[in-house]
């Protein structure tokens, strides 16, 4: 838990009580109306709401690398198939664990290079050191689950690896303390002998060392005697080398090396506890890291996770480690809720860095219980600044069949396009969402433009609607209406006439536009040539009558009524004339 005192400029906390509200990653602070007792207000209060955000250490470039690289490993881990036999899987899990650790180490090295410049970086370095230490131990004890014999070898490696981080010089001295004969001794347990054979040999050797000590063989040379005592595993001598050992777990491993090299995993905790007590002494109390390591030595995985969550304040580590342990089937069922909780905490932690929303999606996908719900809520809140971003968000939603979110995002983008008068864009968004209602809206807008201006805009769109025309009736009408105008322009009158009629008879055209359509028919009726046939003329007449028989619009002014009735008269006249000519034409037998 961090505690910091931050003065918020402008918030008159000298005068009024401040109120606050928690947000997902930040805090909203505002002035209330409650004055502080006994203070006379000096200046007018500030009406603003202040957003207090935690310092974006999560957004630091180096930590972002950690998140991105580990995300790739995480996704790869989820893809490991269930049916692979467990022995092969174990080696895969170990290599994944090593991948995670190498990412941590790379991050740590980079932070160390930049360490001088920013103090938060040194803080991160020490946290990452601790994380890698714990992770490595968990890998040895739980994931690799080294059996007796090789267990100590792995622990030796573990200690050596982390010892070298701290003090390279000490390592040199340490190496001089372990004589060469010891190294060759350790090649043996690797394969050629069984554990008991090795154990027998080792005991024999140990007894010999002991005898040397008793016989005072090395009495002349104090250094050699010390070395011999170490080889025998004399605890007091080892403790004397405290500076070189520097940590209790190094002491533990050294002690085991010289007293119980064939240590079995279940026996580990006894030595761990006693080593810690001996090393730290009666006055020093163990730090959180020590307790975590001790729990690991005791094979209490649940405790390790719990303590890590509390002590380290780093959800990244806990989330990824528990996920890996879960895949190794090492967590009990009652821990799964824990896993879910941890993962959601990691996600809300990541939320602080807004750019990481795409990474978060994969984690949501693998959140056992509420992942889908959280994702739905989260994805709607990603700001859609450009079309490209909206397209990416849409792809995420479509891949997961989140149809409601698809519809709402497309609608937002379509509305925005419409507001900016980009009718083509608006239409393309409606097509993607298969939103018939919005397509109708767009068509209405086109028709409105047409009646205002007298011509169609955006012809490139209207002339090339293609199958999209079928999305909504109004859109179909719009496309066909434009086609009528085009046919007329190309002087293909009979086709144009047929199309115009079909728009009304097939009820594609809305009733409100029938008068416009009929008026469009006037020039065709007025042509010298007869274009509409007898049947077509009868149909036009019935359309006109149908239009007039409808209830009168009460909002119409007298002037409008006059115009309407004039139009109707004109049409009736034109239709009658056309009918006459058509009858004559059709009745005439061509000779």
């Amino acid at each position, binding site marked *: 838990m961090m505690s910091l005192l931050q003065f918020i400029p402008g918030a008159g906390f000298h005068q009024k009580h401040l109120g606050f509200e928690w947000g997902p990653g930040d805090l909203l602070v505002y002035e209330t109306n409650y004055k502080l007792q006994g203070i006379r207000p000096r200046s007018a209060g500030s009406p603003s709401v202040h957003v207090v955000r935690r310092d974006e250490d999560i957004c630091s*470039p*180096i930590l*972002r*690398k950690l998140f*991105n*690289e580990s*995300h*790739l490993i995480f*996704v*790869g881990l989820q*893809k*490991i*198939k269930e049916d692979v036999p467990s022995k092969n899987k174990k080696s895969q899990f170990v290599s994944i664990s090593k991948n995670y650790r190498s990412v941590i180490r790379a991050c740590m090295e980079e932070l160390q290079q930049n360490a001088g410049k920013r103090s938060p970086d040194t803080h991160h370095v020490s946290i990452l050191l601790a994380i890698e230490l714990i992770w490595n131990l968990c890998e040895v004890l739980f994931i690799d689950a080294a059996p007796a014999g090789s267990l100590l070898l792995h622990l030796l490696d573990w200690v050596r690896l982390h010892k070298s981080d701290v003090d390279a010089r000490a390592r040199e001295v340490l190496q001089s303390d372990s004589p060469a004969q010891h190294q060759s001794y350790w090649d043996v347990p690797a394969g050629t002998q069984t554990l008991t054979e090795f154990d027998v040999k080792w005991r024999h050797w140990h007894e010999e060392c002991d005898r040397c000590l008793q016989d005072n063989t090395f009495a002349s040379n104090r250094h050699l005697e010390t070395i011999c005592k170490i080889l025998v595993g004399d605890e007091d001598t080892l403790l004397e080398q405290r500076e070189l050992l520097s940590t209790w777990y190094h002491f533990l491993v050294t002690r085991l090396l010289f007293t119980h090299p064939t240590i079995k995993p279940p026996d580990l905790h006894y030595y761990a506890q006693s080593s810690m007590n001996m090393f730290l002494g009666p006055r020093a109390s163990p730090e959180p890291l020590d307790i975590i390591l001790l729990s690991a030595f005791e094979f209490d995985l649940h405790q390790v996770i719990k303590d890590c969550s509390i002590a380290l304040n780093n959800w990244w580590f806990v989330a990824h480690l528990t996920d890996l342990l879960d895949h190794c089937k090492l967590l009990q069922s009652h821990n799964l809720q824990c896993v879910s909780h941890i993962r959601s905490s990691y996600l809300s932690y990541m939320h602080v860095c*807004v*750019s990481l929303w*795409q*990474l978060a999606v994969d984690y949501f996908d693998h959140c056992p219980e509420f992942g889908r719900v959280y994702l739905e809520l989260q994805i709607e809140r990603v700001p859609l*600044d*450009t*079309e*490209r*971003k909206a*397209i*990416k968000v849409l*792809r995420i939603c479509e*891949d997961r069949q989140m149809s409601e979110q698809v519809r709402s995002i497309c609608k937002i983008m379509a509305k925005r396009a419409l507001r*900016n*008068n*980009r*009718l*083509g*864009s608006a*239409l*393309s968004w409606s*097509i*993607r969402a298969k939103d018939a209602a919005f397509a109708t809206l767009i068509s209405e807008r086109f028709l409105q433009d047409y009646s205002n201006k007298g011509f169609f*805009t*955006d012809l*490139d*769109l209207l002339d*090339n*609607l*293609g*199958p*999209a025309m079928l999305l909504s009736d109004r859109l179909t009408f719009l496309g066909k209406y434009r086609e009528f105008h085009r046919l007329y322009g190309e002087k293909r009158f009979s086709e144009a006439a047929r199309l115009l009629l079909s728009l009304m008879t097939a009820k594609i055209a809305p009733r409100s536009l029938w008068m416009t359509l009929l008026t469009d028919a006037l020039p065709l009726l007025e042509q010298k040539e007869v274009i509409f046939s007898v049947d077509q003329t009868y149909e036009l007449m019935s359309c006109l009558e149908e239009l007039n028989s409808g209830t009168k619009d009460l909002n119409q002014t007298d002037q409008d009524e006059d115009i309407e009735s004039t139009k109707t008269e004109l049409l009736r006249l034109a239709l009658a004339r056309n009918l006459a000519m058509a009858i004559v034409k059709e009745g005439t037998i061509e000779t």
Partner: protein
Amino acid sequence: MDPTAKYISQKISRTRWRPVPAGLLQQPEVFAAGSWDNESNRVSIWSLGDNDSDTDGEFDEEPRLLCDSEHDGDVMDLQALSLAHVWERAHRYSCDNAPCTAVVCRSPELVSVGEDGRVILYKADQTEVVRVIENADSSTIHAVTFLRTTEVLTVNSIGQLKMWDFRQQSDSPAQILSLTGDRVPLHCVDKHPNQQHIVATGGQDGMLCIWDVRQGNTPFSLIEAHSAEMWEVHFHPSNPNHLFTCSEDGSLLHWETTSGSDMSTLLQRGWNSRVVSHSGVPLAGEDDSVVSSWLAGDSSKNRLEATHMLPSQTLSVNSLDVLEQCLVCGTDGEAVYVHRQLPV
């Protein structure tokens, strides 16, 4: 050989090689990367270190940052130019700025297109824009490419290709091409380096279309290349039998003809195409082969093979550029991948 990855802590929207002088047969060393979706975006220039490989031919230099600068808004496109200039508010709506989606340059002229449907022509040394085609498109124009010195081709979000001739006074396109089926938005376009009438486009459904702009209203070939939006398509500039595409689905494909015939005859006759993964082992959760829609042609002789260039499924690959034997691409996973030994 696997490409080297470098995590640069920002999501990459565009990467472009700095052009090497023609005829020198040098490998490109410097590339630019633009970021997006950050509170403060940057354009950064990276260098790959020296060109000489070790005795065993291994390049293990990671890209080093040379310099970077801040950029307002997302970096949508990058082009190399010798002069620098800023044209403010070139793309706009009536009350707001509109995103400019793509820029192409053929020195000294530049053309930009945007979400406001404008096509704007600039000259590198002039502060005023040379020409604006207002209302070039009622939808967003996603990409633009030069066909000839005075002609450009644009693609938009209702699936149309439009050819514009700047010699003409009128503001309408010289030609419009589109698919007969669904109007799928097109996101990228590239012209064949030698034959100006052959053009490749990629769209929202991941289909790669090859068009002949001289004839007809329909593309020559349609290939199911990707399972999500295709962001960029590039013919290899010196060896056009190779084509590269990258997509939102996290893959970068390298297409090449395996028969003796070159790409143009192959395109006219059609092909049978197969997608293979990088190492020959299928990636987890993926089909082993994808057979494209088969258009007329002899199946046995003409084959088009595609290989995955990236080792595993990453987040969306937003951009790629290819020059000589080097390929650079950038992903939403904040990583830049550089491949220095392309088999071209």
